């Protein structure tokens, strides 16, 4: 037993074991997120949602997955074969890589990086680019449009996202997510304490996370009514599935990051820490889903204007106020 624990202390083995656990868990959770979202949307629409496949439609995501892997894999004649095939995998890779630094409980994290926040934001910001690569490689005009919009959106919204995530970093004085959570356990959650910049930064962070995850009202890259299916127009079967699950994982991990940075992570009044972390993540994700099925969509230029005219100056102001606060506090 002790030997096994010693083995886990080795960073390579530790990373591999936890990585495997987290990736497996995330992929299966993603499948059930789709089920949850369909049921949730159906309730909003006074519908039933999936009911026929398994009890309460619980086997629906498995059926979807099995269907996707047996579909014919079409690569359009004029597509760039290599990039077209690689893009879904790279997208999923970047989406999953964020999970490495998300602390689910004091010991349960794949890698306790000192620059965890920076790493998470950088990797999730990269997710827009393989989408664009895939869109360009499919040699389809709708896909190209979607890809261009995706990359423009990713670049723009990365800035307010980073700026709003810097607020807890400045307050806690650390770039490590674990240390930020521990600071919150000691001094109160950033969303509520100190009153002022924290809650605004939290709202801003979730807003930009919506945009980064291509969720309505910021889903202009996919925009089914305009661009058919956006960057994934030419993708069939499981490749489309990879794109879709990457998007869900991204949203989920952004919720987790929001919970860790602003809502005290695994902090809770009683019980095991993991439970509280997962609860907060799920609640944030439900909020994201609710927004998705309620609002209409922005136009692309309005989206850019919203980012550059309101969000970026706002985030800068927040950061300034936070800096002043920290300076005064000493």
């Amino acid at each position, binding site marked *: 037993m002790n030997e096994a624990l010693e083995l886990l202390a080795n960073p390579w083995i530790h990373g591999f074991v936890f990585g495997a656990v987290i990736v497996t868990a995330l992929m299966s959770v993603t499948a059930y997120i789709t089920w949850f979202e369909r049921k949730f949307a159906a309730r909003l629409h*006074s519908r039933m949602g999936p009911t026929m496949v398994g009890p309460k439609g619980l086997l629906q995501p498995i059926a979807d997955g099995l269907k996707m892997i047996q579909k014919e894999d079409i690569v359009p004649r004029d597509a760039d074969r290599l990039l077209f095939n690689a893009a879904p995998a790279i997208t999923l890779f970047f989406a999953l890589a964020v999970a490495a630094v998300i602390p689910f409980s004091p010991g349960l994290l794949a890698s306790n990086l000192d620059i965890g926040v920076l790493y998470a934001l950088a990797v999730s910001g990269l997710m827009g680019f393989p989408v664009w690569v895939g869109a360009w490689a499919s040699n389809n005009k*709708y896909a190209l449009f979607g890809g261009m919009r995706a990359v423009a959106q990713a670049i723009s919204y990365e800035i307010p996202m980073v700026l709003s995530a810097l607020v807890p970093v400045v307050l806690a004085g650390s770039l490590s997510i674990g240390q930020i959570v521990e600071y919150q356990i000691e001094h109160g959650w950033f969303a509520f304490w100190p009153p002022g910049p924290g809650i605004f930064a939290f709202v801003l962070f979730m807003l930009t996370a919506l945009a980064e995850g291509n969720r*309505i009202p910021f889903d202009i890259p996919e925009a*089914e*009514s305009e661009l058919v299916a956006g960057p994934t127009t030419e993708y069939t079967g499981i490749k489309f599935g990879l794109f879709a699950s990457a998007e869900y994982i991204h949203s989920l991990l952004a919720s987790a990051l929001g919970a860790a940075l602003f809502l005290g992570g695994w902090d809770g009044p009683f019980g095991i820490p993991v439970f509280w972390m997962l609860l907060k993540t799920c609640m944030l994700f439900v909020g994201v889903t609710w927004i998705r*099925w*309620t*609002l*209409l969509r922005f136009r692309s*230029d309005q989206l850019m204007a919203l980012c550059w005219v309101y969000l970026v100056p706002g985030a800068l102001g927040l950061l300034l106020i936070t800096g002043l606060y920290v300076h005064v506090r000493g």
Partner: protein
Amino acid sequence: MAVAETPPAAPVTPAAQATPIAPVTQVAASTGPLVPSGPPRDGPIPPIRAARTPRTDCKPTKAFVPEPHLDLSTYEADADLMTLSLGPQHPSTHGVFRVVLYLDGEQIVKAVPYPGYLHRGVEKLCEKLMASNITPIIDKNDYVAPMTNEQAVNMAFESLMGVEVPVRARYLRTVLAETQRVASHLLWLGTFGMDLGGALGGGTSLFMWCFRERELILDLFENLTGCRFHYNTHTVGGNRHDVPAGWPEMLHRTLGAIDERLDQYLGMLEHPIFSARTKGVGVIDADLALELGLTGPLLRASGVDHDLRRDAPYHAYAEVDLKVFVEDAGDCWARSKVRIEEMRESIRISRILVDNLPPGPICSTKPLKMVGQHKLPPGQVYVGIETPRGELGTWLIGGGANKGSSPYRLKIRSPSLHACAVIPYVLPGCSLSDAIAILGSLDPVMGEVDR
């Protein structure tokens, strides 16, 4: 919500400058930015029509030369123009309709529509059939509002044959037409939401709710006619189906329930994202609307106070006090507002009329027993009525070589055809997203455009 910076001066095309009447004096504050999207650019701009003060006096304009066909060889684009074929199978073209867009970045430079993908030769078919056979076929023309279609063609036959319609049938027809208008506008609202909000998002919620309400009206019609969708309830000289017991109460219940929910839809008009997507987008001014022969909600949203139900009353419209809603802006928002307000008015009229249904026969002609009972006299008539989409006219020619009960020539003047003809005038200057919003707000039904 945040929109692009408004350019200081309105780009005025030579065509607009040449218009002597209705000069470009001021821009209505409510219409928002003149350039619907995108920053102002240097060099030649695509023709964007300036918003003008809406007119209600309807004086003719002289030398109005629209420029829908931009010569692309003289256009200096920032980069290569992209040609995008939107349709005929696209989630948002409302049927099989194709628009070829020439895009400079995301801005549309030129739009060329291609209808005809649903041309079913109805007019040719009608030359072979007699009046009672034509009704169920005309049902399928405007498949969103079959009731008013039937009425349009049957009224033309009645006019040509000189058949009187009993008072009860006239009242019932009015009730049906107005109820159908509610159903049609609900379907429009749902699909418009889909256009703005996507198939996986809030638009779908709107779509589902609108269909939930529309199903109630279809139940109502099913109780009356036995059919859910294509009713075949009108005939020459009246209606086939009299009101069953309990039907007026059912109508009150249904329309009352919908009326309560209309407040929510009206509230949606003030939503920041909805207004940002629709205000100042796709402005059709009164001149252009009249020139293009737009009718119905599209014309009223452009500030022209014109409604056939009030101005040339048919059915029982002369007996009710109809309120006509007019909006001045002429953009997608105004069109939405006019349609939603019309729903409420239609509900009010239906509920009043169904309570005052006069007794008497429902049809003045005997039930059809033999082929050729309805003899068509030679002659030509034109009858236009106000359907949910505008003036649906029927030009009927009797006699000729078909000396019998089938028309020699039957031409349907469809409001959707004119609505689609707006596209090359309105789309240039908008972005791709705006194009979808504009297409949705025009509410074309392809069965009616192509026939």
